[in-house]
């Protein structure tokens, strides 16, 4: 492309703001170090590799923090195609911390499972790199490249337990569905480019908001549907439960939280920076996706007997909640902050729930709900932690989940359209439905006796404890002082 532009004449090299790119550079450096360590040290690299990955992630937090503090406002590069503003920084921090928690979750799981360790972490880091690039992309090319960068490693990770048929199924299903969705999305993007004549989101936005043609409608629908797969919105959700169940559980946590959040970030960028003028298409489409996702997800979750599958369907339902503010994107631009807040809190409580599932499975070797029977008798700490996450998922104050849901309800009511009022009532009813299956787990843990009276305690390694502690603290803090997060999110959006 640069050659092409150079021949067009008048091309000047873009100025690079290295401070703004520092988080990405640190991550990239870590990936290189991981590969070198693997090549040079071979087997001896195993014990240190996960620590290296963790340090790299924490290291990339440093520039994110300095950028936040530096107060130099928004930094733009590549003609506004790559933007580092405070909302991007918030999301980057979220992705990096999520990645760190996933590394913590993986440490013992991967080491004890005799998997390919260094490759595992290298791929995870690549995927996280894709996510933080996504947070800054305001350009079709940038969005597409970062989407592929975060997805392709994830396809492989899903099939990581390669001797297990279900894991292979998970990887293959995820891959085929993902590629299919990408195809549809790319088609939509090509139409957008055709209409707008630019890959820049703002430019396309101006171009498509003026006129109303079938091509634009088609382009918008196709692009959104492409990401509908990524965030597992009904009716594009069918891959999720199988993939989640088959993949190694830390990877499932990664897919369910980080990868899904990245999909939402892409949707945010597209809808709020590009499609606002086309809300006559976006609003009904999002209404259908949102209402279907939350209702279908919750109803199917009621019948699950496996915790991971249940969390998968609950994730689908929550995707429905998160899609709701898009319905009023036109009327309530500040609804964007409610999405970001939900994503962060969603991340904390779901990662926490997965952490507990991983910890319990260390003893029971199973993720069936029945295997958690009487958990309180042999692992009271885990039980309390799980209860915190479940209560947060239900939306009980003072745990984070209530504020996440509250923000979305508020955005919808603020929208004051018929669609919004209908959706908010559907959401309220769904909250109650969802409580039923979350409480079922709580009931099994607290009210029933351990199977076979086996109350040997669960040994939980330090890395898992740390992961859980991070999640519990985040869930509590954001619940009691939601202002912390909400302020950050709304400042990020320019008030």
């Amino acid at each position, binding site marked *: 492309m640069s050659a092409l532009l150079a021949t067009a004449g008048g091309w000047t090299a873009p100025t690079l703001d290295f401070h703004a790119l520092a988080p990405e550079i640190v991550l990239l450096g870590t990936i290189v170090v991981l590969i070198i360590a693997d090549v040079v040290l071979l087997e001896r690299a195993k014990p240190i590799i996960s620590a290296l990955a963790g340090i790299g992630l924490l290291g990339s937090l440093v520039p994110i923090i300095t950028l936040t503090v530096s107060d130099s406002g928004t930094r733009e590069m590549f003609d506004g195609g790559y933007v580092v503003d405070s909302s991007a920084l918030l999301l980057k921090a979220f992705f990096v911390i999520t990645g760190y928690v996933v590394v913590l979750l993986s440490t013992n799981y991967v080491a004890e499972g005799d998997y390919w360790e260094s490759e595992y972490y290298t791929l995870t880091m690549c995927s996280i790199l894709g996510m933080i690039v996504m947070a800054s992309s305001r350009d079709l090319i940038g969005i597409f490249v970062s989407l592929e960068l975060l997805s392709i490693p994830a396809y492989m990770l899903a099939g990581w337990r390669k001797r297990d048929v279900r894991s292979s199924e998970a990887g293959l299903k995820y891959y085929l569905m993902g590629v299919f969705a990408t195809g549809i999305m790319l088609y939509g993007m090509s139409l957008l480019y055709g209409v707008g004549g630019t890959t820049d989101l703002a430019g396309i936005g101006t171009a498509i908001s003026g006129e109303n043609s079938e091509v634009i409608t088609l382009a918008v629908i196709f692009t959104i549907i492409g990401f509908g797969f990524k965030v597992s919105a009904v009716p594009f959700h069918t891959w999720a439960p199988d993939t989640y169940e088959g993949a190694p559980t830390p990877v499932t946590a990664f897919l369910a939280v980080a990868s899904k959040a990245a999909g939402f970030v892409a949707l945010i960028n597209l809808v709020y920076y590009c499609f606002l003028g086309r809300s006559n298409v976006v609003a009904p489409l999002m209404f259908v996706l949102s209402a279907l996702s939350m209702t279908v997800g919750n109803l199917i979750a009621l019948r699950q007997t496996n915790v991971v599958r249940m969390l998968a369907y609950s994730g689908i339902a929550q995707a429905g909640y998160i899609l709701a503010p898009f319905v009023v994107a036109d009327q309530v631009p500040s609804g964007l902050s409610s999405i970001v807040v939900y994503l962060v809190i969603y991340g904390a409580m779901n990662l926490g729930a997965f952490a507990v599932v991983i910890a319990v499975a260390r003893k029971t070797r199973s993720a069936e709900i029945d295997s958690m029977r009487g958990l309180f008798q042999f692992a009271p700490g885990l039980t309390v932690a799980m209860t915190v996450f479940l209560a947060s998922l239900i939306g009980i*104050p003072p745990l984070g989940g*209530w*504020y996440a849901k509250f923000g979305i309800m508020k955005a919808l*009511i603020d929208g004051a359209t018929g669609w919004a009022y209908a959706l908010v009532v559907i959401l*309220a009813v769904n909250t109650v439905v969802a409580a039923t299956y979350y409480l079922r787990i709580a009931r099994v843990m607290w009210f029933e006796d351990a199977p076979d009276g086996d109350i040997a305690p669960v040994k939980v390694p330090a890395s898992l404890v740390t992961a859980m502690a991070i999640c519990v603290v985040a869930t509590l803090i954001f619940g009691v002082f939601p202002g912390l997060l909400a302020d950050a999110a709304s400042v990020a959006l320019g008030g």
Partner: protein
Amino acid sequence: MTFVPLIGAAAMMVVPRAQETLHKGIALITSLVAVGLGVAVIGAFDFDQAKSMQLVVDKSWIEVINSRFIMGIDGLSMPLLLLTLFIVPLVLIYSWNHIPSPGNAKAFLILILILETGMIGSFVSQDLILFFVFFEVVLLPMYFMIGVWGGEQRQYASIKFFLFTLFGSALMILSFIALFFLVKGADGQALNTFDMAKLSEAGGAGIAKTTGLVIFGGLFVGFGIKVPMFPFHTWLPDAHTQAPTQGSVILAAVLLKLGTYGFVRIAIPMLPEAAHSWAPVIAILATIGIIYGALGCLAQTDFKRLIAFSSVAHMGYVMLGISTLTSYGINAAVFGMVAHGLITGMLFFIAGSVKDRFHTLEIKRLGGLLLQTPKLGWILGFCTMASLGLPGLAGFWGEFPAILSAYQPADGLSVALFRTCMVIAAIGTVLAAGYLLWLFQRVAFGRPSEEFENDSSIHDVVATEWIAWAPILFLILLFGFLPGIIFNVTNPAVSAIAAAAQLVGG
């Protein structure tokens, strides 16, 4: 003060589970500290100014949504706050040697303290979101209390309780947000606040009539489920029957009041116009509740379930008083809340003790309480008299003025309708006398049934029970003779609310 119980709970979390006595001690001391603070509050409270908020704490909390951490006390919250502070230590004393199976005093007592925080917080919050948070905090501990320490049907009862209330809260929070956006100030601008005082002052200005009706409907369902009003009451008998004694007492004494308190504090002052339109509906449902509850009682074979249904009837009187929208009626309602809290709480204590001794609450199998355990029998007699509204005891002052108030509802309400309700409610008192006396007769009179006649392990009231019960019995008597103690405190605040409602109706 709100957070004192939480500190205690936190302290107990670090103490190992085995040291039960220490746990009980910490819990009790914590709740007594809260009582001490309550006494200090009484001291600092200016009773001449009971109309307005006092001891206000106002700090910034969630700026983005303009929700502030506002707490304060006025004459309306005061009695309910003190009721909470009063009941919890007694429940803890009762728990001293009555930890229900399967034991684990640590978790049980921690839950009670968390409950206390939620209840106190709800009564002192002056911000809708803060209120909502505390309102919900109560849910989970109660769920576990019923689910872990409850009776045989506990799982069904606990989930039913939880889902009913959660559904109500979901609608309630939607109504709160709608108020946030729609209520307009004097200058015609949307207020965008959750501050209860400001919203009440605005009195629903700027909301179209139908919208107001819908929002009130949301609040109505939210609070109505908690009260519980007919037809949302079905969770209550199950929850009460299955809950452990302590759970039933707290549920009856305080939790139900959150609903009625919500009506008086939030729904009516903030949407007075809609309240006028809804008042006849509330009155009719309240009257149905009275009769239905009474008939339900007559059909019960289980001691505890009978008391639960009597709660439905009593809360019907409270709601009838509220629905008149007069200061007379609402005063009666607040008194009714306190009285019901004391009397029904006491009845559940007795039921718990009967169950402890006889291991059954089947009325048929009981009998001759007066012969076998005379003190317990007489206390039961005292409470049934109080519950049926015998003058001279607290129950009378909740029930009788509520019925009277329906004679002259607020201006603009259908007098004929309310007088009809009044007559029916009065018949309800006869039924109440019927079922309570019949209960007393079956349980206390006659001879003990054969299976228990020679059971020497059945003993009379013991020391911890006396300590827990005596204050309640004393207060029932005191409020019966000197109802002014409560009426004088509540009247200024209630009059203000009623006056605002009158203004719109007239």
